[in-house]
């Protein structure tokens, strides 16, 4: 298992379009990936569960992956979150 924390920096958070893009990115990896905020966990490949966690600007979330490409997945998604602008 590999995990990293990242701050959500875009104004709309992981909702709507940025959330959709995030899920698409997560699906590029074969590992099981979770987004964790406080007590809440979401499957990074499910927009529905991700929306319910409610990742908004300024939140610190942990991205955690288990699987053959876990390091690439986490690093890739952390970098992706940092580039979100909307």
């Amino acid at each position: 298992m590999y995990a990293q924390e990242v701050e959500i920096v875009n104004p709309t958070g992981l909702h709507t379009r940025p959330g959709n893009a995030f899920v698409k990115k997560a699906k590029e990896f074969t590992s099981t990936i979770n987004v964790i905020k406080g007590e809440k966990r979401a499957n990074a490949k499910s927009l529905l569960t991700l929306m319910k966690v409610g990742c908004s600007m300024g939140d610190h979330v942990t991205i955690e992956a288990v699987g053959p490409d876990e390091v690439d997945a986490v690093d890739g998604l952390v970098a992706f979150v940092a580039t979100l602008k909307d």
Partner: protein
Amino acid sequence: MHGFRGVGASPGIAIGRVFVHVPPSLAVSDATVPAALRQAEVESFLQGRQKALVGFESLIDKVRAEKGDDLAGVFEGHAEILMDEELGEAIVGRIRDDGQSALAAVRDAMEAQRAEFLALDDEYLRQRADDLSDIGRRLMLAIAGVEEVRLEDLPKGSIVVAQDLGPSDTARLDRDRVAGFVVAAGGRTSHVAIMARTLELPAVVGCADIFDVATSGQVIALDGGDGRVMVDPDAEALADFECRRAAHATAMEAMRALSPLPATTGDGHRAFLGVNIGTPADAEAALPWNPDGVGLYRTEFLFMNRTGLPSEEEQYRAYAAVVRAMKGRPVVIRTLDVGGDKPVDGLGFTREDNPFLGWRGARLFLYGSDGAIPNRDPEVKQQMEAQLSAVLRAAVDGNVWLMYPMISSVEEVDVLRQQQDDVRARLAAAGRQVGQIRTGIMIETPGAALVADKLAEKVDFFSIGSNDLTQYTLAADRGNGRIAPVYQPFHPGVWRLIAGVIKAARRRAIPVGLCGELAGIEEAALPLLGLGLDEYSMAAPTLPRIKRIIRAATMPEAEAIARAILDAPTAAAALAMAGDAMRAVLGRVQ
């Protein structure tokens, strides 16, 4: 000829021909599927989902071509939800393990998701809940193999009559072919109502009986302002609607022409017209109306779309964005105004018998769970300091007025000002840059209104919160339909309190505004002006209507109607007098 009355959801007059949009009905069986047939139901779900996806993809292409990437992105999100793996597993589980049919499984799985979204108590996610219904309906139609009704090629000038319309329906409508909407379901905040206002198309919602009469092809006229609908109107009624349609178009044009002009009376008295906003995006959207500032920035939205509390940094970014957008015009930022009826996560709300008379507004900062004044509970204290710090820092970029809601007494103001001074001193000691601000309070409790002269010595401005002031003065819950007649914005008792507040503010020469719904009610514009109100704050689209009245009036006229209202025996009499005075003034300029 048949007349109906619904809820006016998007102003304007439309005359056209009925286009009845009936979504195909679906028969869903709740019988348990035998184990041997369940795999076939799973297949039917998977194939239906694939078909629905193809439908979404063509919708996305169409929307992208006609309406741009933003709206197309919304439906890309819908397609993603349609194919969501957790949702898919839940549906398959219901079929395999519970023996539900594919249709019943989709219906119940979607409903479960919807309920979860609705329970999140967040405006944004509530709207997503309606999207889920829309996605579920399309999926069910695809599974059942029922053809969608084509909305793309309805005849020009159609008035769409429907039980309800979802996002995927309105997105497929060709704007040039639709003249308006009449919807049997829904309220002013339903999807179709919001969509109609965005497209500036007249709409009436909540018109429950419309299907008793309306059939496609009939002539229909509607008034999206007062909610009147006429099916198959006679010549006289039709002429009346046509006349009002022309008048509405002229009025809209005049209003657009008004936006660059100040709200100055014929005899040179200047009033200030501000806007009520909740987000930096609202501030941007208000700019075309040319407001004199933001009269009420509700900071609650920052706290609602989330679990936990927004950081100081996050709050600073939002406040600074609004302050910069207003370019030096005043921005009244209200501190977090929530209560037990709509608690915010992470502040230690507990159940109260009377949340509207309980721990809410500035009382959060004031009263601790241990009886301490001010509140020393760590979460609240930290939030208070974060919010005040963010406001003081944002003030560097413009003209910030900080406002505390739900004040009952002078002591409360003393405590809040002391806390604010402490935060400012701490920021300064840490070498942070802070700006100058004005500090004011909302007057929304009768007690505060009655000691406004004393409160005026303690603050830089007042803003009258007329909604709560009315509710508390008349002891009437605004949301309780049964006693709706008790809640009277024109009750002379409410107006006497308002008059006293304005008088007290003027005596100390501090500005006084009003940011409740009353500020946007046309009949109230003249009497408020006559009482000496300095600033009105309202939803941006209402600005020109109030400005038009102020510009048509003179102060002696406004003062006369103000005196008459304070002496009116009833709210009905006060409203009637105010309406007459307004029409007299407007009649002169038209």
